[in-house]
């Protein structure tokens, strides 16, 4: 009889401990009401992102003065001629396709 009562008490104690442990675990998962919520950012799709910000073609282009543009073109022609002359002196495929530092093509 005593053994039966002891077993019943131990079972009841185990049940109480399990219930307390469950209650504590469940409580820690609930978000605190006064805790600051993390901000949720809307991640736009790449298409949407560019569609929102992209200006019409040419509108964002910096207007380089014509004189500066002409100088750039002239410089480009000189560099290209020098590259072509190097190729004509020693015609190889590598020399034919050497890159120049011209900003027009880089």
């Amino acid at each position, binding site marked *: 009889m005593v053994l039966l009562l002891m077993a019943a008490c131990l079972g009841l104690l185990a049940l109480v401990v399990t219930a307390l442990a469950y209650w504590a675990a469940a409580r820690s998962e609930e978000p605190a009401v006064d805790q600051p919520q993390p901000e949720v950012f809307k991640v736009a799709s790449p298409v949407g992102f560019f569609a929102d910000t992209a200006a019409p073609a040419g509108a964002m282009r910096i207007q380089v003065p014509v004189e500066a543009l002409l100088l750039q073109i002239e410089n480009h022609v000189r560099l290209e001629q020098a590259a*072509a002359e190097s190729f004509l002196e020693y015609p190889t495929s590598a020399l034919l396709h050497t890159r120049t530092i011209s900003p027009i093509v880089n």
Partner: protein
Amino acid sequence: MNYREPDLLKGLNDEQMEQALALGSRISLPGGAELFGLGSEADRLFLIDRGRVKLTLPIQLRGHDQDILVEERSSGQTVGWSALIPPYRFTLKATTLIETDLIALSRESLRALFAASPEVGYTVSLNLAAVIGQRLQLFQTMWLREMQRVVERHCV
């Protein structure tokens, strides 16, 4: 001639060269002067004695024609070979970059010289072919380099 031997007259002996140069008229131009215009009638070619000549072609830039450098020629070089090649129209515009002295040789006088002295005609024709061939090879190479860039930009 003051400076380099003209590339067009290479291979001529002294007498032949004097004979050819005697046909020319000397021209002195300040910097920035137009020697000939694009599409104008080519009735004489020019040997550059001293100075520099810029050869240009127009491109459209923001709705306006702008002259773009094609080549630069200097002392000893020839400009205006269209005077000897049909349809005798200049295919570029030539402008002096600095004060420049030139010798102008008319087509008619050169033809008369070639008829009278075929040996001179042959040598000058070979030199002319070299000048034209050099231009052709240079621009063929530049065109191919540009094509390569177009292909890389649009087709790869």
